[in-house]
């Protein structure tokens, strides 16, 4: 037993993010009963779905922020982003994540994709990167997968993100061993440029895939760690297939009580992120000494065994998977779900024809402050403002020289609403468009969009916090520009929702 690497590397933080919106599966089965009446039985529970302004990158950012809390961003040396639904095929998605987190320019960043194993593949790559680095490595996985209306994927999938921070100090879970099997077993595939998966018969996937390849990898990793199945406290087996965990556990000799919840009731299967999403949930309640077996099946299988350390009791994510799951807003808005995912084209009127080409030159000049939401404190007047401008905004600021600023990150601060409205006239993919003016205690004030707003929760003086979102998508060139939006501060929205119901 012991660390598999010469230098002690492990998980030092974990976090998750789940979009607020949850679609009741009964809304899907009811809407599609005309074509598939037998799916009624599957209309139980809820699945999460991303809003129009969320994608794998924004969810990875939020999950990473959930894990990092106040962790110093300058200590991040690597950012690895895993997804099969990254918004850009060619533009470093992990670079956007790193920028939004406020990591320095000296980070190593790369994207991992290619299969539902991408999340654990990124974790494995991250362990290697962390071993050769002094700082911490953020491994963030997120998925926003499309599914054909009426398909079983539509019912079974969910949208979410998870993040692990790997490092050398205050390790809360160490990696005892890892083992991978790679086999071109094609249970499903999605060709480059296609929107949807194509899957093969489920019985074959269970019997030839999960029940053979997963045990092979699990036995391999147990042997490497010199452990037996009975030493495993928790089995994490992400899968879109119902009850496959029980069958695999039985085959391995792991008791049913050790099987981690697949999160289908409130979330759904979140693709390549699901292994890390489940792990982020398991770590919330893990006890020191717990050994966690993670097996991630896809064209083979990744297997890792983690062991919680006593430090796990001292760590809490900002909100954690359980917090995000509890903050859901269940809806029956099937058409909203379809529209957000581009499955139906709504009539948006002539205002939606607004040209929105972003000047990449302009974006780059301000990319650091815009991505990480950094304001500036004018060194002369000490007044904080956003954005930084050549001449500072304070009434007594100098006019005869360009201002010099100290960075003031705003992303992790709360602010208060000064003015707001719900605008039904302007084009917005999710009307009404909530926007207004917010005031930070440090003096910065910013005109902002409000998101994830329960009716009546945005009022003058209300506390808000910041979320990283898509500001706008260029419908012609398909570029997307990100910025921060304000949302009712943690707890506020949930309380309002309860009051409303």
């Amino acid at each position, binding site marked *: 037993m012991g660390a598999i690497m010469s230098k002690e590397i492990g998980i030092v933080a974990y976090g998750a993010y789940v979009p607020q919106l949850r679609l009741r599966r009964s809304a899907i089965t009811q809407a599609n009963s005309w074509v598939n009446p037998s799916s009624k039985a599957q209309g139980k529970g809820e699945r999460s779905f991303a809003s129009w302004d969320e994608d794998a990158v924004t969810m990875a950012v939020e999950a990473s922020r959930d894990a990092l809390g106040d962790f110093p961003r300058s200590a991040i040396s690597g950012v690895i982003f895993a997804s099969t639904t990254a918004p850009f095929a060619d533009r470093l998605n992990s670079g956007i994540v790193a920028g939004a987190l406020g990591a320095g320019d000296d980070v190593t960043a790369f994207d991992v994709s290619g299969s539902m194993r991408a999340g654990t593949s990124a974790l494995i790559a991250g362990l290697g990167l962390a071993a050769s680095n002094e700082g911490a490595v953020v491994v963030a996985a997120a998925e926003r997968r499309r599914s054909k209306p009426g398909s079983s994927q539509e019912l079974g999938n969910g949208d979410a993100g998870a993040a692990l921070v790997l490092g050398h100090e205050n390790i809360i879970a160490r990696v005892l061993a890892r083992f991978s099997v790679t086999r071109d077993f094609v249970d499903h595939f999605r060709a480059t440029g296609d929107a949807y998966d194509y899957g093969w018969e489920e019985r074959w996937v269970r019997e030839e895939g999960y029940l053979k390849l997963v045990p092979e990898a699990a036995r391999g990793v147990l042997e490497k760690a010199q452990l037996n199945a009975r030493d495993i406290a928790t089995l994490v087996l992400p899968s879109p297939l119902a009850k496959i965990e029980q069958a695999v556990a039985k085959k391995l000799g792991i008791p049913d009580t050790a099987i981690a919840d697949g999160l289908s009731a409130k979330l759904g299967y979140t693709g390549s992120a699901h292994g890390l999403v489940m792990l982020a949930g398991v770590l919330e309640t893990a006890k020191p000494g717990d050994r966690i077996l993670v097996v991630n099946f896809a064209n083979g299988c990744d297997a890792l065994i983690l062991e919680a350390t006593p430090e796990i009791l001292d760590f809490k994510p900002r909100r954690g998977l359980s917090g995000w799951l509890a903050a859901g807003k269940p809806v029956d808005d099937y058409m909203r779900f379809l529209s957000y995912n581009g499955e139906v084209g709504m009539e948006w009127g002539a205002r939606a024809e607004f040209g929105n080409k972003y000047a990449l030159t302009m974006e780059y000049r301000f990319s650091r402050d815009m991505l990480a939401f950094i304001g500036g404190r004018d060194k002369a007047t000490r007044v904080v403002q956003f954005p930084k401008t050549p001449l500072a905004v304070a009434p007594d600021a100098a006019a005869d020289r360009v201002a010099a600023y100290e960075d003031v990150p705003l992303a992790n601060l709360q602010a208060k609403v*000064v003015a707001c409205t719900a605008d039904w006239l302007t084009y917005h993919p999710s009307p009404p468009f909530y926007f207004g003016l917010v005031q930070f205690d440090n003096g910065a004030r910013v005109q902002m969009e409000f998101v994830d707003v329960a009716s009546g929760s945005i009022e003058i003086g209300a506390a808000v916090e910041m979320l990283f979102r898509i500001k706008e998508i260029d419908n012609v060139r398909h570029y997307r520009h990100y910025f921060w939006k304000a949302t009712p501060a943690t707890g506020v929205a949930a309380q309002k929702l309860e009051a409303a119901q």
Partner: protein
Amino acid sequence: MSTGIRDKVAIIGMGCSQFGERWDVGSDELMVEAFVEALGDAGVTRNEIDAAWFGVSCDPINVGNSSVPLAVALRLPNIPVTRVENMCATGTEALRGAAYAVASGACDIALALGVEKLKDTGYGGLPVRTKGLFNDLWMPYGSAPGTFAQLAGAYSAAHGVPMPDLKRAMAHVSWKSHENGVKSPKAHLRKAVSMETILNAPLIAEPLGLFDCCGVSDGAACAIVTTPEIARSMGKANPVTIKSLQLSVSNGQESSYKDWDGSYVVNTRKASGRAYEEAGIKNPREELSLIEVHDCFSVTELVTMEDLGISSPGGAPRDIMDGFYDADGKIPCQIDGGLKCFGHPIGASGLRMAYEMYLQLQGRAGERQRSDVRFGLTHNLGGTPINNVACVGIFGRLGD
């Protein structure tokens, strides 16, 4: 020490096209319609005009850029023409340019013309625009009603006025303008509307309903200005003169510095303060005879009553409900129907406000005519409550 332009500029002719959904005509016809009326009114010929200022705001659906469209439409004899654009305050900005040219002695007779053809967009409301490539990066772009709607919540919070009371005062603002519009032959909307209809209209941007928003119209208005001396030499013994034209522009403190509470418009206060000083007005509530303000939305008019120093802080809703600003009140506001009912062709609106003052000061306002009109104020606001340009004009007779 500047002496200002008080009584240095006389208005000798004005014209205003029919406002409304002018499906039958384009910008050129609108410009000519206003210009022909002004020329006849002034009793001058086209060749006597030394210079022109041309105001038009919404480029993509209009005449194209530069001053050439005005020069071509009016076939001006190769005189200097300046194109100005200052959002919804464009019309007053054009007048300001012409007035300053005359006041400086640079020219004897100058023309100001504003026009907007908004009904070529294919939809209701104003065309949407970017606010610049830098602002694209971070600024939320709401609709015009969305930006002004925010005044309401902030005003309610600042003055402790319950929203239902505020909504009622806002509804009275629109109700009154509809009553006035009926008596305004060139107005776009000439139909009285009940308070109940106004209060129950569909929401556009909370808390503004449909009737809290002004009309989007086609139209043009113009003015011909000269010196009082020349005006008198033309036989106009006591001409209408400009007592003041003041402009105030946001520098970003409302949006980026902590002081402003969102419940008023900084530049209206600054511009009106300077205008009163230039015009020698000590007590606007007592001295002004009538006012035309930028009632793009009912709540804008409401806060403007306080920003102009006519209603006390927090006192506008009461003054409004008391009928202080009604056609038969102490200081009628929007006696011609205002933006709300006369209509709001962006580039023309400031000049349309001046047109009503010009008529009223000469006793030529027909059914709408008030007695004893001495000083009239126009307030033309461009932009949003948070970033704007405010133009305040004061008009009277030379002898006053």
